[in-house]
């Protein structure tokens, strides 16, 4: 007869917990230590990939920003790239620069959410309020250029961008970059004290595990894997820009926060280069095409979004809607293999810190 351990029980870290998002994890606990974890996704499953088979390419460009709400413009961009590669159209040079500008601003805004939500999960309210306060300046820019604070209504569409930047946009963007630098200085002062004590040594992911479990993006870069799709498999105008890739070795939650902050700095550098080099001249708005069929073929496009590596496999047989559009998001890999591996042996009180430091988007995981 086996002895029943009186301190062993099962704990549901569920969707209504104030420290979690739209997902749940079943933890088997002994005392204060987690012995095993099982993730339970599916609260947000809409069947995105088949919804795209019912719509034509311009309708899909509006639907594509809703794959993950925190980085709507990046998903817009990867969908537009997939269709552009199938049609083989020539994109005007200025449109390419505007695409990269909006994608990098969206990356900065997403990292600020990461920062704010991690602070909220750690019980550090100042960081939460500061990060979300500074993020609103970037949302004002989005409203000026695209019309929507959160969802840009398919601004980056197959064929370029929907309309040109307004005249006052460049100066306002430079002002916003100044404010973001102010925010980064505050982040550095937080890191020396509160953040460090609560995240150092928590949730260590080493290099071999990161490669085996399929981690990509800032999570992998904080564990020593130095790869970034923008420099390994470049797209748009990234080959002409000059930026670095921050990499760290420790692999704990603190290293991930540092990598996130350094990436904001690199994105600011990229935006400044884009503003300097952008060609002059007016861009015509996109005209909706009547003969809308996508030529036959299949492509696989990769992009670096704020959370990791995104991919779209699109296959077309000559109709207006794609025949199959498979969306590969980074969060499916981060949520199930990586999180279950990291939670083994952790304390219950560290579970929110580990979860938020992985920067998971539940919508991108379930699609």
């Amino acid at each position: 007869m086996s002895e029943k351990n009186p301190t062993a029980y099962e704990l549901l870290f569920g969707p209504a917990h104030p420290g979690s998002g739209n997902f749940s994890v079943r933890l088997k606990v002994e005392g204060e230590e987690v012995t095993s974890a099982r993730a339970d996704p599916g609260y947000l499953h809409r069947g995105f990939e088949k919804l795209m088979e019912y719509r034509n390419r311009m309708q899909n460009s509006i639907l594509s920003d809703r794959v993950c709400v925190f980085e709507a413009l990046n998903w817009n961009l990867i969908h537009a790239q997939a269709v552009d590669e199938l049609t083989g159209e020539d994109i005007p040079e200025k449109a390419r620069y505007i695409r990269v500008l909006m994608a990098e601003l969206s990356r900065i805004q997403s990292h600020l959410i990461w920062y704010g939500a991690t602070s909220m999960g750690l019980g550090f309210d100042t960081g939460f309020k500061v990060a979300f306060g500074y993020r609103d300046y970037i949302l004002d820019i989005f409203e000026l250029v695209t019309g929507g604070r959160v969802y840009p209504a398919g601004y980056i569409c197959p064929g370029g961008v929907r309309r040109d930047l307004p005249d006052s946009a460049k100066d306002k963007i430079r002002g916003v970059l100044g404010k973001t630098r102010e925010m980064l200085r505050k982040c550095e002062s937080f890191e020396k004290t509160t953040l460090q004590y609560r995240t150092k040594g928590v949730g260590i992911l080493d290099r071999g595990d990161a490669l085996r479990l399929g981690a990509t993006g800032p999570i992998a870069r904080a564990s020593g894997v130095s790869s970034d799709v923008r420099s390994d498999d470049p797209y748009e105008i990234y080959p002409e820009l000059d930026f670095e890739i921050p990499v760290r070795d420790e692999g704990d939650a603190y290293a991930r926060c540092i990598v996130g902050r350094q990436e904001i700095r690199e994105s600011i550098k990229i935006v400044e280069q884009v503003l300097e080099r952008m060609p002059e001249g007016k861009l015509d708005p996109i005209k909706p095409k009547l003969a809308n069929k996508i030529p036959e073929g299949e492509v696989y496009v990769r992009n670096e979004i704020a959370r990791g590596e995104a991919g779209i496999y699109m296959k077309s047989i000559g109709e207006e809607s794609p025949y199959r559009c498979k969306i590969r998001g980074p969060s499916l890999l981060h949520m199930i293999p990586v999180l279950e591996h990291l939670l083994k042996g952790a304390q219950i009180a560290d579970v929110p810190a580990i979860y938020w430091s992985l920067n998971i988007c539940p919508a991108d995981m379930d699609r």
Partner: protein
Amino acid sequence: MNEMDLIDGLELEFGVNAEKQRDRRVWLTVEGGALMDVLRYLFDKGLEHLSAISVTDYPGDGVYELTYHLWSYADNFLVTVKTKTSRDKPAIESATPIWGESAQIHERELHELFGVTFKGNMDLTPLFLEEWDGPPPFRKDFDWRKYVNEKYYNKENEREKPYSI
């Protein structure tokens, strides 16, 4: 090693015809029996990162086409391997002995959404759907608009009549 070396190597070893679509993209098609050997050969050549596995449904031909997208961190290019399996009782060998958990999670999702059985995968429990007893949802013969119309819309209701197709 660049793309052309890999293409020559594959031709020598397995007799498959791979083609280079553009810079950094190689596509090839293999038979079901040779799939595991080709995947293991590619893994040993440095293609350590499994980016995605996907299934496309061709009801006219009666096949499911699987695509494996592999990326090499060392040499910076992507190889896509395509293979076909029958649509009636789709079964294929699992890639988990080679890529571990990252292949396991992709196969678990495809098992739920398309009904493909991966032999050798330890964990094929449902991932997203709770208490779903219909057909695999992403097959081409499951029409969503008809299903939604019958299940959710009420034809007696004035407000919902225009949505009935």
